[in-house]
């Protein structure tokens, strides 16, 4: 928006406010206010890495999505289960399928596209039972998801790899990082954490005792300090120690805040000063998010080029259907799914299990 328009609007507001106050449009008295605002303390001592002390989580059999979701899915009776018992494919069938998709947060646009394709396929194959239609839908979705690119998290041998985590407030970035750190340590990689989230008090990655639990050194700084300096120091420390993997935590931010998104771009540039280091830019998305998830993905991808999605909190009742739109429209694959708060509650994304759970 141009400065001219800004000035105009500003004065417009001023004029409106002045006129209306003076006209005294019957309102309450003005309250005295003297609120302090959030202070930004200065960057003080340089970040201090901590020594690891806890043993790593052994690479035991990884949990599967199906096992984790079983209990939440069973609680809810599905319109689709009732549907599949019926014997005719009619308007009600399509209505119920549409509703099931909408309730899974798949969204109006994507649902519309899916239904159109489905109706065509059902007609072609002369599907006569709702159960068939449901199976076709699932197959369609799985095919769509299977076609996606590599769902593994890239870790190149013999160099320092950086995985950076971004997303809006409250989605579970820090928890996801802790889980991944433990998992990767279990696989035998040397891991470091960069607590570039300097907004939450103390900037501590995991709070008291947490760092030891994860067993990885943490590079951090003071609350309110410049996150760029934390990233910079983490990169230096990682190179010096020959660490395999650096996980960078960033502060949650609404994708609509231009200045915060600019800050994120800056953090990315700092990592890129070491060519080839940045292997994953992971967008963490909360499974309970509605259509806004797509807007988030668009803006973050635009700003810092996202390579994959970490879908969290799938152990709740939300289905996370928004990732279908994210994959379809932006081509960003879901790489990892969070299904709980402890270390092993992190499972690889499996299209078949995910689709099953969508309608369970």
């Amino acid at each position, binding site marked *: *928006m141009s*400065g*001219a*328009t*800004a*000035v*105009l*609007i*500003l*004065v417009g*507001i*001023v*004029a*409106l*406010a*002045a*006129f209306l*106050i*003076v*006209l005294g*449009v019957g309102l*309450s008295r*003005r*309250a005295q*206010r003297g*609120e302090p*605002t*959030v*202070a930004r303390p200065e960057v003080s001592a340089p970040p201090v890495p901590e020594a690891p002390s806890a043993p790593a989580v052994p690479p035991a059999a990884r949990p599967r999505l199906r096992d984790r979701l079983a*209990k939440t899915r069973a*609680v809810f009776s599905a319109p689709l289960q009732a549907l599949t018992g019926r014997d005719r494919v009619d308007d009600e069938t399509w209505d119920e399928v549409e*509703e099931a998709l*909408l*309730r*899974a947060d798949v969204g*109006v646009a994507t649902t519309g596209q899916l239904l159109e394709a489905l109706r065509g396929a059902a007609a072609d194959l002369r599907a006569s039972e709702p159960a068939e239609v449901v199976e076709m839908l699932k197959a369609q979705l799985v095919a769509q998801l299977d076609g996606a690119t590599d769902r593994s998290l890239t870790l190149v041998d013999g160099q320092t790899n950086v995985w950076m985590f971004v997303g*809006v*407030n*409250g989605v579970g970035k820090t928890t996801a990082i802790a889980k991944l750190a433990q998992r990767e340590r279990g696989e035998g990689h040397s891991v470091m954490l960069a607590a570039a989230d300097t907004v*939450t*008090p103390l900037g*501590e990655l*995991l*709070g*008291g*005792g*947490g760092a030891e639990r994860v067993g990885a050194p943490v590079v951090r700084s003071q609350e309110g300090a410049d996150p760029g300096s934390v990233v910079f120091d983490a990169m230096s420390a990682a190179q010096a120690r020959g660490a395999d993997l650096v996980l960078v935590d960033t502060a949650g931010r*609404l*994708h*609509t805040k*231009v200045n915060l998104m600019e800050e994120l771009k800056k953090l990315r540039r700092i990592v890129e000063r070491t060519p080839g280091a940045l292997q994953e830019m992971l967008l963490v998305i*909360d499974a*309970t998010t*509605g*259509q*806004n998830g797509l807007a988030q993905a668009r803006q973050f991808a635009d700003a810092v080029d996202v390579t994959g999605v970490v879908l969290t*909190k799938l152990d*709740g*009742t*939300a289905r996370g259907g928004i990732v279908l739109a994210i994959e379809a429209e932006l081509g960003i694959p879901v790489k990892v799914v969070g299904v709980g708060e402890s270390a092993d509650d992190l499972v690889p994304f499996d299209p078949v299990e995910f689709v099953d759970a969508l309608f369970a």
Partner: protein
Amino acid sequence: MFDTLSDRFDGIFQRLRSRGRLGDREVDEVAREIRIALLEADVNVSVVKSFIARVKERAQGAEVTTSLSPAQQVIKIVHEELVTTLGGSTGKLAMSSKPPTVVMLAGLQGSGKTTAAAKLARHLQANGSRVLLVGADLQRPAAVEQLRVLGDRIGVPVFSEGRDPVKVTKGALKQADRLGSTVVVVDTAGRLQVDAALMDELRRVGKVAQPDDTLLVVDAMTGQEAVHVAEAFDEAVGLDGVVLTKIDGDARGGAALSVKEVIGKPILFAGTGEKIEDFEPFHPDRMASRILGMGDVLTLIEKAEEAFDKEEAQEAEAKLRKGEMTLEDFLDQMRQVRKMGPLQNLVGMLPGVPKELRQTEVDEGELAKVEAIICSMTPQERRRPALINGSRRLRIARGSGTTAQDVNSLLKQFKTVQQLMRQMSKGKMPKGLPQLPV
């Protein structure tokens, strides 16, 4: 929030206005369009169904004899139904006749409870209460620390001693007695409504706390699940109201519409930004107006009242009218307006602002530039911009870190605005802006 929904309704109503009478078929069509708009706004499927049914029933049964056109009637019905769905009249926190009033916050992980607790505490304190914050979230590392830091900033004591949330709550009530607190705000750990053990813990905390208000904290970007979460929490501990957080984002906001409808409890507050002051009481009627593009003039006035001194406002108005406003005055006024909160939010409250203007993000950086330029001027230059020649312009540009062109364009724009102001004061509004209720 609600921007997309507003735009959809804009379109729907524009098309509606071009029609004459509204038969059943036309009502059906409009209903279909509204259904899509609401679903795209993340309103729960079941809530949309009942909303549409109500609107259809009223629209089809509406009498033809009123003075409103059919289109206006439909808009009126939709507005009324939106207000009802959003919660009717503005709700209030129940205060206990015997202090302290206990407010307990609950919700999913990441919904913003801790921040909301601090914001609520500050809000209540500003309105005269003596608040005690209770850190009963022992689950998330650093949650209590975060509360302590925030409490420190706003001068509200924080209590969090005890090995489990129930003990902490017990101790807090005793502390409240000792401190003479009139309100106790309890932050609890985020939990899934399907986690039986944690829901049970919440019940136990509730039993000890005996809250006068149990508020569910809901993230504005929550999708279809909002209703299931709300229902479950309501069943478990009984909710009295809802706090909607992060509404300053571009989330569709459907959760707001769904939750009230499903649990029958009002949305009491909304978190509108990152700062601790960005917290306001939720007004269903104003929100309904904003969704329908009718602006939110009442909130705008309230904010203006808080930011502006009445005398200063009168002086400003007089100067504006006579076209005497100088850059100096403008600087003062600009600073006051900035106190009203993010400019983006304010623009959203202006009625009739064209869609393009509403959607482009206001670059507060531009305003900072304007401020810097004016500050680099001498008082005489501010009073008489005609003084500013080439060398002065360069000096101002250098001093403010801008270019001579920037300075030039600001001066030009200001001149234009002064002329506009003179026009407006004569009662003639320039094209594109709504008529002032003078």
